[in-house]
């Protein structure tokens, strides 16, 4: 049965209901009205009225008709509402007064005719007048109609207020209102049929003054059945309320577009796109994006790049195919800007292997249409950027390309199986050709340094020739010559560097290092005079005066005397050196180191461990100072085994700085037990080096044989990093982070990934306390070698061409 022919279940056509039956039907009608089923309510009341024609049942029927008329008007069926109201008045003349306002309302709504309403208003009693005024408020869709209605006299307060509202509405929608203009509406009371118009005009004025809070406040006071309430959702949308308008009409859309310049539409369409992206619905997202892009294009020119960049990035983050979106975004052949945005978006989502070919495509297209020159800073900077995108970690590069070694990668590039833009060396060469900038040379030298040192030197030499005022290539060339053992050449480069900047710390350090190596080599070759010349030059440099370095230089002179067979001089120098150092352990270690470096048989001068006859603290000091000196110079240090064992057993009492030097010695010489013991004593001392002792402790424990020790290492390293960060000790913080990354975690900590979080102060105090109280010495393994080849992942990644394909396909189709 259709809705039209449904019968209400309550009333019978034949049986007249008794009193209780009438009450039941009334309750049923009320229930239907409450649920908005006005049609069924009218039918039920009509059946009741037919069965029992009483004043009570007639009143119930008229009530139901009234609700039905209002419902028809609410759905816009004003003509039908008017016809029904006329019918009711005709059939039930006794209830005319109750239906009359509705009849006037339907007349006003259907034809804009306020006449009957105003006529009724003039002669109505106070109660009816209030009803009619409320009705007027509901139907008054244009104040001008009221202001110009001849049935109201010129002096009628309602007409005057309507004129003011009409003029102000015209003014507020046409331009900024002058200050105080709204005062004309002050006389409109909140019971007036014009009160909703007063609130609407205030809301519009607030909107143009960008006082959105006032807009919302005024709108909330408009009764929902008043005519101006029809504009409330639109104004709310204009004022930035996120809730979209339900089924906007053509008039709604036109008004929103005209007033907001497309902003309101953009917000609505964007909400649709966001929903589609959240729902991972690419088809729906594409539909939303199509409208959104059109709206975005109507905005200012500066908006579109950010819009495209944001849209592409979020699109790729959602793992959507970029090709259809690019088809919508790109406007013709000259729109290289969008190709650039795609490359940037690919780069931002971490797909460097697709981003680099996308950048290359952008570069080629831009140059083809003369949007970018072939030479100069711009292409060079872009090529350098592309090169920087390619990982420096060769393992990552090989894994992505799914090849065994770099040679195989080069072969695939040569064969065209992979785009040649994935060859970093080639990209850098192109950058250099475009613009031989210092940054490009620096990148070229760094690229070739580990692959082909001779080529790196050639690049550095070309850099020096191109930029003769740059210090960097000279320092690199000096280092490279030093590595080859060409000390004279290295010194020549350093001479050239000194001409540019004599006091540069790198120049000074390099000169000291080269002269030291040169002097030692001459001594190794027993060329004493040449060695002494180097030592003399070395001794006058400022680098030679730092810490215990003068002692090392003196030790070289002692060695020269020994090499020359000048025994008396050697003895004298040894004695002077001993007095200068004031520590027999240190003297012994320095002499032994020099002797080992130059291959000198020390005879009876070095070899007996004097530490056994010394107080332990002084012996520790000697060993610590020797570690500071010799480790910094990268020279051999042969610590007396007995002394090291004594320190490991009980290192307490030594100065914190010396303890830290012993930590460094232990870690550098793969003697973790020494680092463990020294860091433990350092933690007991509670000094400002605590974070460094924690780092040393953590690094030592990281090589522990048992999982519990690695768990302790994790805590120490996290505490060290947190403290170092707070103390702004960036070097220690970085080392702690590196150690945390390399730490092999116990299985029960694998899922927590706690290495990224900082520790709270209480937790740090607990770590320190635990380490102080740790008594049992752990057993250590050898340190794992750094930079080992990572295991290849089992899952094969998609090959490069397929990941780059979206861009390549698109480019081919468009161009």
């Amino acid at each position, binding site marked *: 049965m259709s809705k039209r022919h449904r019968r209400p279940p309550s009333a019978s056509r034949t049986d007249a209901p008794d009193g209780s039956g009438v009450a039941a039907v009334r309750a049923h009608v009320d229930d239907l009205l409450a649920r908005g089923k006005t049609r069924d309510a009218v039918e039920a009341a009509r059946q009741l009225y037919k069965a029992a024609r009483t004043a009570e049942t007639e009143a119930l029927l008229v009530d139901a008709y009234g609700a039905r008329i209002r419902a028809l008007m609410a759905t816009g069926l004003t003509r039908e509402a008017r016809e029904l109201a006329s019918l009711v008045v005709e059939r039930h003349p006794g209830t005319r007064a109750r239906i009359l306002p509705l009849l006037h309302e339907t007349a006003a709504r259907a034809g804009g005719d306020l006449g009957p309403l105003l006529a009724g208003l003039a002669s109505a009693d106070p109660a009816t007048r209030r009803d009619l005024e409320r009705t007027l408020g509901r139907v008054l*869709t244009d104040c001008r109609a009221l202001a110009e209605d001849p049935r109201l006299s010129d002096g009628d307060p309602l007409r005057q207020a309507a004129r003011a509202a009409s003029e102000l509405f015209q003014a507020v929608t046409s331009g900024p209102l002058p200050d105080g203009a709204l005062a004309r509406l002050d006389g409109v009371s909140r019971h007036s049929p014009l009160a909703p118009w007063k609130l609407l005009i205030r809301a519009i004025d607030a909107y143009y003054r960008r006082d959105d809070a006032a807009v919302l406040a005024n709108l909330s006071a408009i009764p929902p059945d008043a005519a101006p309430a029809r504009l409330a959702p639109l104004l709310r949308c204009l004022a930035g309320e996120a809730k979209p308008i339900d089924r906007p009409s053509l008039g709604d859309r036109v008004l929103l577009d005209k007033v907001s310049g497309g902003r309101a539409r953009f*917000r609505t369409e964007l909400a649709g796109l966001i929903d589609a992206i959240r729902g991972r619905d690419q088809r729906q997202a594409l539909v939303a994006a199509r409208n959104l892009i059109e709206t975005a294009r109507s905005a200012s020119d500066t908006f579109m790049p950010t819009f495209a960049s944001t849209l592409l990035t979020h699109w790729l983050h959602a793992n959507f195919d970029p090709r259809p979106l690019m088809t919508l975004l790109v406007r013709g052949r000259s729109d290289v800007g969008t190709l650039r945005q795609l490359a940037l978006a690919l780069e931002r989502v971490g797909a460097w292997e697709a981003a680099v070919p996308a950048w290359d495509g952008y570069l080629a297209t831009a140059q083809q249409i003369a949007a970018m020159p072939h030479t100069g800073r711009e292409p060079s900077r872009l090529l350098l950027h592309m090169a920087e995108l390619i990982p420096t970690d060769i393992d990552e590069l090989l894994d992505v390309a799914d090849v065994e070694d770099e040679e195989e990668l080069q072969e695939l590039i040569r064969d065209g199986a992979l785009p040649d833009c994935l060859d970093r060396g080639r990209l850098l060469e192109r950058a250099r050709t475009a613009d031989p900038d210092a940054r490009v040379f620096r990148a070229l030298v760094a690229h070739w340094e580990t692959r082909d040192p001779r080529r790196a030197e050639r690049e550095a030499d070309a850099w020096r020739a191109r930029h003769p005022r740059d210090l960097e290539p000279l320092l690199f060339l000096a280092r490279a010559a030093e590595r080859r053992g060409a000390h004279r050449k290295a010194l020549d480069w350093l001479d050239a560097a000194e001409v540019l900047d004599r006091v540069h710390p790198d120049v000074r350090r390099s000169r000291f290092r080269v002269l030291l190596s040169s002097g030692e080599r001459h001594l190794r070759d027993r060329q004493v005079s040449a060695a002494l010349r180097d030592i003399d030059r070395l001794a006058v440099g400022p680098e030679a005066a730092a810490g215990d370095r003068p002692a090392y230089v003196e030790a070289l002179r002692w060695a020269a005397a020994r090499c020359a067979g000048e025994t008396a001089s050697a003895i004298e120098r040894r004695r002077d050196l001993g007095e200068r150092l004031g520590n027999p352990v240190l003297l012994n270690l320095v002499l032994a180191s020099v002797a080992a470096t130059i291959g000198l048989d020390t005879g009876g001068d070095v070899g007996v461990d004097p530490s056994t006859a010394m107080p332990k603290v002084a012996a520790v000091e000697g060993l610590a100072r020797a570690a500071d000196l010799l480790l910094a110079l990268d020279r051999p240090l042969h610590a007396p085994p007995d002394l090291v064992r004594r320190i490991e057993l009980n290192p307490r009492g030594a100065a914190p700085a010396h303890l830290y030097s012993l930590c460094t010695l232990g870690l550098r010489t793969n003697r973790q037990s020494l680092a463990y013991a020294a860091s433990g004593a350092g933690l007991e001392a509670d000094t400002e080096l605590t974070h460094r002792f924690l780092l040393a402790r953590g690094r030592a424990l990281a090589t522990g044989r048992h999982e519990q020790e690695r768990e302790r290492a994790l805590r120490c390293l996290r505490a060290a990093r947190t403290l170092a960060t707070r103390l702004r000790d960036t070097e220690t913080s970085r080392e702690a982070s590196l150690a945390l990354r390399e730490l092999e975690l116990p299985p029960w900590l694998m899922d927590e990934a706690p290495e990224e979080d900082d520790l709270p102060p209480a937790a740090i105090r607990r770590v320190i306390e635990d380490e102080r109280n740790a008594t049992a010495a752990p057993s250590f393994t050898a340190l794992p070698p750094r930079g080992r080849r990572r295991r290849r992942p089992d899952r094969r990644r998609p090959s490069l061409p397929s990941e780059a394909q979206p861009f390549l396909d698109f480019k081919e189709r468009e161009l």
Partner: protein
Amino acid sequence: MRAAYLAAVRAHPPDRDPIAFQKIREAYDLIRDAERRLELRLFGPPPLESLDALVGLFPDERRHVGPEAWLTVLRETRR
């Protein structure tokens, strides 16, 4: 560029409109440095953190269009 900057500063002097002046100053600092200008041309603008934020960037125009468009909506309730 400098002339445009000075004109903008005259329109928004720091004592009367410090926020606008600050923005003008930052923009000028950005574009007068050739390297930063190149960076912006090649690698800008950065995407926004969320798509929602695009609404904030869309020009917030509030055009006066006269009463007719508003009245049309009000009249739409009639049939």
